[in-house]
């Protein structure tokens, strides 16, 4: 037994309202740069729908993930090592930019600088790849809320496995949202596909990362990932992916998508697993047994034997403690209401979902019945085969039994809690019918419905004795003209173009990219010098041209022009990114 810890996320789909706040905040934090316009580490899909990139779940076409050979071994679906090397000059299974969408901006400047004329000026869409006018035909969310899906929904790969008439009917019956990030799989096929060995799984917390210094842009990881959550940065020529916000996790903060989730539907916590069993579990013969196989890989953190083994593997005590308090472990193991996304890809994904009961409730309610009555709900779950089969296509390789079991538990919770709210006893027979007790269901209700921040996110910090290595603690002098500066300045231009030079720590890099964008309307098209794009301005600092010139002496910087920027002594005064009440600085320039 080799115990390893995995940072895991569970999302409760019943609570997702499809507001895309997670996607937007993630994008602002990580991918608001040239080259990553089309990159959404987090995206929210309306299901049934095509997903992003279009039809990524169709593995006959995209060849992601693993397959089991006849001899019972695992093989990359797109081909093993020899085939990877043979197709290295042209990867036949790489999605093109049009399978995502062509990124664009609008010619906003025309609205302000157009000469007076008969017609109202318009802001035309301009391609961010060519700078030319373009017509927008697709985007990351084109079929949001089933918009236009009469034309496209038939191509949903999950629906294609169901029958034709079912799809027709389904459009009138149900819809739900599916937020997706990188799955940080236990058996990651992207890592296996990387010829350079630049992708790796972190031993401590299982986060899958791309070493930007080692990536050579062979693009095999994009093909390897069945979830298409590794993206190719077309500006730097390197692969990028969701990092599970590791700089935040290391200091005990939840990911940006979790932190900003309006519905509070995300849970973060550790799961302990036996690394020795991963290979066998992933090679389980029947894809419908993969869910059970993956569950069998997990280790109970309350088991004294597991705790001893974990200690001997060097897992710190506070991490074991966090694993015992993990909300994710409770949802996966204690209540068994969380399921993995597409276990049939054999990657053992580690972002799990509580499937939504709402589509069933909606159908019952719209037919004039009581959508929260236990008996009605139980009956509806068994009868409404369409949502059930669809959910099974997503979460259990087509086997409806696990999904039905989860939905019945959610139904028992919903109807039971209504009884409690009406001042009656919790109906124990409902709890017993789904194999739980009333107390257990009320605990589950608490976790799913009203759990506080500290209960939803149980994140042990990285260890302080190695705090100097933490990315967020990076020395501030090492960037942007400081004495330790590498090749990459504010404009990102090293001697060999924008992608060269030593990379700055991720958080700092994004910070500077944001600063640069605050003072530029768009990388292409006309721009009025000195104009600040207020949409990108974070409210800190004094971008040139935003405020009238300073009366006192014409120096645009409130800290005075005397001190060298980034000099060792200037830390407090030079920190314009600090909070507004920073005593050393005067970010607003009030003097």
């Amino acid at each position, binding site marked *: 037994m080799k115990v390893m810890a995995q940072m895991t996320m569970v999302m409760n789909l019943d609570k997702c309202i499809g507001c895309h706040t997670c996607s937007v905040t993630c994008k602002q934090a990580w991918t608001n740069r040239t080259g990553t316009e089309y990159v959404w580490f987090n995206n929210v899909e309306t299901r049934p729908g095509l997903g992003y990139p279009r039809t990524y779940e169709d593995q006959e076409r995209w060849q992601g993930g693993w397959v089991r050979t006849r001899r019972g071994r695992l093989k990359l679906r797109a081909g093993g090592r020899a085939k*990877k*090397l043979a197709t290295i*000059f*042209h990867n036949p299974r*790489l999605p093109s930019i049009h399978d995502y969408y062509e990124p664009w901006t609008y010619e906003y400047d025309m609205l302000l600088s157009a000469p007076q004329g008969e017609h109202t000026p318009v802001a035309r869409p301009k391609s961010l*790849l060519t*700078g*030319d006018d373009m017509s927008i035909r697709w985007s990351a969310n084109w079929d949001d809320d089933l918009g236009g899906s009469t034309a496209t929904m038939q191509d949903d790969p999950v629906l294609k496995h169901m029958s034709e008439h079912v799809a027709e009917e389904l459009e009138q019956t149900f819809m739900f949202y599916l937020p997706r990030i990188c799955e940080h799989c236990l058996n990651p096929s992207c890592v296996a596909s990387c010829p*350079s*060995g630049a992708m*790796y*799984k972190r*031993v*401590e*917390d299982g986060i899958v990362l791309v*070493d*930007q*210094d*080692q990536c*050579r*842009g*062979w*693009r095999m990881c994009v093909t390897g990932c069945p979830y298409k959550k590794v993206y*190719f940065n*077309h500006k730097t020529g390197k692969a990028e992916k969701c990092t599970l916000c590791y700089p935040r996790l290391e200091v005990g903060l939840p990911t940006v998508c979790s932190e900003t989730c309006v519905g509070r539907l995300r849970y973060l916590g550790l799961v302990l697993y036996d690394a020795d069993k991963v290979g066998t579990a992933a090679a389980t013969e029947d894809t419908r047994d993969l869910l059970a196989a993956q569950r069998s890989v997990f280790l109970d953190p309350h088991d004294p034997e597991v705790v001893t083994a974990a200690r001997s593997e060097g897992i710190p005590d506070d991490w074991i403690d966090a694993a015992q308090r993990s909300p994710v472990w409770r949802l996966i193991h204690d209540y068994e209401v969380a399921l993995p996304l597409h276990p049939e890809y054999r990657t053992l994904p580690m972002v799990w979902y509580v499937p939504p009961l709402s589509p069933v409730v909606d159908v019952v309610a719209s037919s004039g019945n009581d959508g929260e009555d236990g008996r009605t709900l139980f009956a509806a779950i068994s009868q409404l085969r369409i949502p059930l089969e669809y959910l099974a296509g997503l979460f259990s390789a087509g086997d409806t039994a696990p999904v039905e079991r989860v939905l019945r538990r959610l139904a028992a919770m919903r109807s039971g809690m209504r009884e409690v709210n009406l001042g009656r006893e919790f109906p124990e027979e409902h709890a017993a019918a789904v194999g739980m007790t009333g107390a257990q269901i009320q605990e589950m209700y608490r976790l799913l419905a009203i759990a506080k921040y500290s209960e939803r996110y149980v994140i042990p910090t990285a260890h302080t004795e*190695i705090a*100097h*290595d933490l990315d967020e*603690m*990076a*020395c*501030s*002098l*090492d960037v*942007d*003209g*400081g*004495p*330790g500066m590498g090749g*990459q300045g*504010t404009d990102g231009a090293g*001697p060999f*173009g924008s*992608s*060269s*030079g*030593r*990379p*700055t*720590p991720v958080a*700092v890099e994004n910070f500077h990219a944001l600063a640069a964008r605050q003072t530029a309307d768009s990388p292409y098209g006309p721009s009025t010098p000195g104009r600040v794009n207020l949409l990108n301005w974070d409210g800190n*600092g*004094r*971008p040139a041209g935003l405020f009238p010139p300073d009366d006192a002496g014409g120096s*645009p*910087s409130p800290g005075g022009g005397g001190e060298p920027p980034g000099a060792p002594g200037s*830390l407090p005064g030079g*920190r*314009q990114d*600090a909070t507004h009440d920073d005593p050393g600085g005067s970010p607003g320039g009030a003097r």
Partner: protein
Amino acid sequence: MDVNPAGIVLWVVVPYVTFAVLVVGSVWRYRYDKFGWTTRSSELYEKRLLRLGSPLFHYGLLLVILGHLMGLVVPKEWTEAVGLSEGAYHFVATWLGSVAALAVVAGLLILVYRRRSTGPVFLATTRTDKLMYVLLGGSILTGAWATVHTQILAGGHGYDYRQTISPWFRSLWYLQPEPALMAGVPAAFQAHLLVAMLLFAVWPFTRLVHAFSAPVQYPFRPYVVYRSREASGAARAPRAGWDPTTTPPTTGPSRRRP
């Protein structure tokens, strides 16, 4: 041996300087610019032409490199010792070489056409790329021309470069250069050599460095790579003189004012 100064410069100084620039430049770039060390693939923008041109070019080039090694490194006496006559060698080298050259030239033409005609690909082309294309195209075309001109059109056994160019090339590695051997070599070969040396001199500073990172270790490593956070460290390696002694009081970076 009587060699004029131009001969010494062209066939002794230039090769050694080229070699030095190639080695030192590559080491320097690897140390300084690992992040910029990539293929800079444009497959995301355009796939159809790339599917045709790229394998044609790259596989052709691998054949061409193999042919050059055969011709330059293996002495004539060795091939004759194993019973390969000059006539047979010439026949094989010329015709295999021509097929490879045809693939490379066709692939290059497709790739250059693609680069010029596909909007996003053209916009992603840097000035260094353009210089590299001129030198790469130049050395391929002069090489192809030298083969056609002196080997195919000349008739007979053609020009025997294994009496002149190959011994000169090996003499550079023995550190006993013999520039006199290059005196009577046809102009087409001389041009090919000079353009190629120029290409090798700019090599470390262009995207061609991706050739040095061919993933030959991939077949020999386990599929899934694990790394410890401590081993991989933070996003950057600490540099001399800046090892932190205490945790900085703040967690954010300082920013230079505009």
